[in-house]
């Protein structure tokens, strides 16, 4: 077995691990509101989301092989890797991908530990940007694209991150406001029962959309790695085992459920009632589907957070915890550079050690950091049993400070 083959195996495993974190980090985007209002039992909600993510991952046959093209220059527009990076069994390119994935995972796990919903796509892009800068210099990054369409870091990452939560928030706020006008005079018990189904339906749609969008990204990354290593040549399809393993990785992650993130989204921002939950998830589903239909990249997390905030703004008399929202926005802003920094450092470590030792050490560091953060999370575990506990600002804030 050559060094490049081992490296390829590491990339595949780490990519699936990223897919897994992508799943558990984003469970809350679809299900937080249904869990918070009790429309679904927590375990039922994550199971439903997992199944829909699995279905979603298989539904999409479009090849996302060019996923890295949005932000960095390591492959051409057809998806083939740049020739100068694939010498030596693809070592150079594989190391960039490995370091980038590690950056994405570390950031995902850290933000999960802090209970902050941050974008998994931004974490992945950030990690890749960091490792590409380290390996190729500034020219390795596509900052703006060629101007013919929304592209590059600005067009595919920054602008959608600014616009999508605002749009989702507006839609959810208006929806919520009108809904409460319409149902004024109806007994609460009656509306809660009715909106329960609306919530489940709209949340399911968000889960399905998530599966079709996010599992694709990992499939694209793994296939790119296979091509770079000379194990796959077709740039128009994804190997079946890649598809199956990515689908199951994201579904498993979703099922495990990022309870810390679910709690923040469902209980931390606003006290959600069933009508608000339905308004929020419908707004999310509509924005995600419309955007992907029109070919815009966006983060499910940003949309879901914007929607939930909007549903708080739209309900007369509701209390929105803006300081929690502020923390989230801060996390969003630093996601890209933070994951990038980790990606870059990992690339340097891998590159300096070189050979087989480099990538192996990088993976060991990833395992050590993840285990450390997981152990920290056990100090104040959040799970299906306590995810809906009353949000106590002081205790929660103190805990967040202590963990961070």
């Amino acid at each position: 077995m050559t060094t490049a083959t081992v490296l390829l195996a590491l990339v595949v495993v780490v990519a699936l691990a990223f897919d897994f974190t992508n799943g558990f980090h984003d469970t809350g985007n679809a299900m937080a509101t249904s869990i918070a209002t009790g429309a679904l039992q927590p375990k039922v909600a994550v199971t439903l989301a997992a199944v829909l993510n699995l279905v979603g991952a298989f539904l999409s046959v479009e090849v996302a092989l060019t996923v890295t093209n949005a932000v960095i220059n390591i492959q051409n527009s057809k998806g083939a890797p740049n020739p100068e990076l694939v010498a030596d069994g693809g070592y150079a390119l594989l190391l960039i991908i490995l370091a980038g994935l590690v950056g994405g995972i570390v950031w995902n796990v850290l933000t999960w530990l802090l209970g902050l919903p941050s974008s998994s796509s931004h974490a992945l892009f950030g990690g890749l940007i960091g490792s590409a800068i380290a390996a190729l210099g500034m020219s390795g990054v596509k900052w703006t694209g060629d101007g013919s369409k929304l592209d590059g870091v600005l067009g595919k990452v920054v602008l959608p991150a600014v616009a999508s939560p605002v749009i989702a928030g507006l839609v959810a706020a208006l929806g919520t406001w009108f809904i409460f006008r319409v149902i004024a005079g109806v007994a609460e018990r009656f509306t809660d029962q009715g909106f329960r189904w609306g919530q489940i339906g709209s949340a399911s749609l968000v889960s399905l959309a998530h599966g079709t969008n996010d599992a694709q990204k990992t499939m694209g990354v793994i296939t790119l790695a296979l091509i770079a290593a000379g194990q796959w040549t077709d740039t128009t399809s994804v190997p079946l085992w890649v598809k199956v393993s990515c689908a199951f990785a994201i579904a498993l992650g979703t099922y495990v459920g990022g309870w810390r993130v679910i709690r923040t989204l469902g209980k931390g921002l606003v006290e959600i009632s069933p009508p608000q939950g339905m308004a929020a998830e419908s707004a999310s589903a509509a924005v995600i589907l419309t955007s992907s239909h029109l070919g815009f990249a966006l983060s499910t997390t940003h949309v879901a957070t914007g929607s939930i905030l909007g549903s708080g703004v739209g309900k007369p008399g509701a209390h929105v915890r803006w300081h929690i929202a502020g923390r989230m926005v801060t996390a969003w802003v630093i996601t890209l550079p933070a994951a990038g920094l980790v990606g870059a450092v990992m690339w340097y470590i891998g590159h300096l050690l070189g050979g087989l030792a480099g990538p192996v050490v990088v993976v060991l560091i990833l395992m050590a950091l993840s285990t450390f953060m997981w152990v920290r999370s056990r100090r104040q575990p959040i799970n299906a049993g306590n995810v809906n506990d009353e949000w106590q600002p002081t205790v929660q804030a103190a805990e967040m400070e202590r963990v961070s």
Partner: protein
Amino acid sequence: MNNVTLALDGAWKVLVTSLLLGAGLPIIFALGVRARAFAAGGDAEVDGGRPRPVGNVLALVCFVLVLLGIALGITIVVASGFGKAVSLQHVYPTIVSK
């Protein structure tokens, strides 16, 4: 700056469509819930009117509209996964190649 222009151009399209589907459908759903309470009367309403069965018909219309909207949403997801798009050019949705 082209990216910004393109983003603004895309953003308002997303906003308008999302308002129609993402806020419009839940409002119709809410009307359905309202109509059901209207039909049930009694303790379904705050001031407890008598049952008015016509509300059930209105509710049915609302819920069917919402279901059609959801079906459209799922079709869009599935179709785009298979390289197709749902066109609304003829008012009613048709599946076309992307």
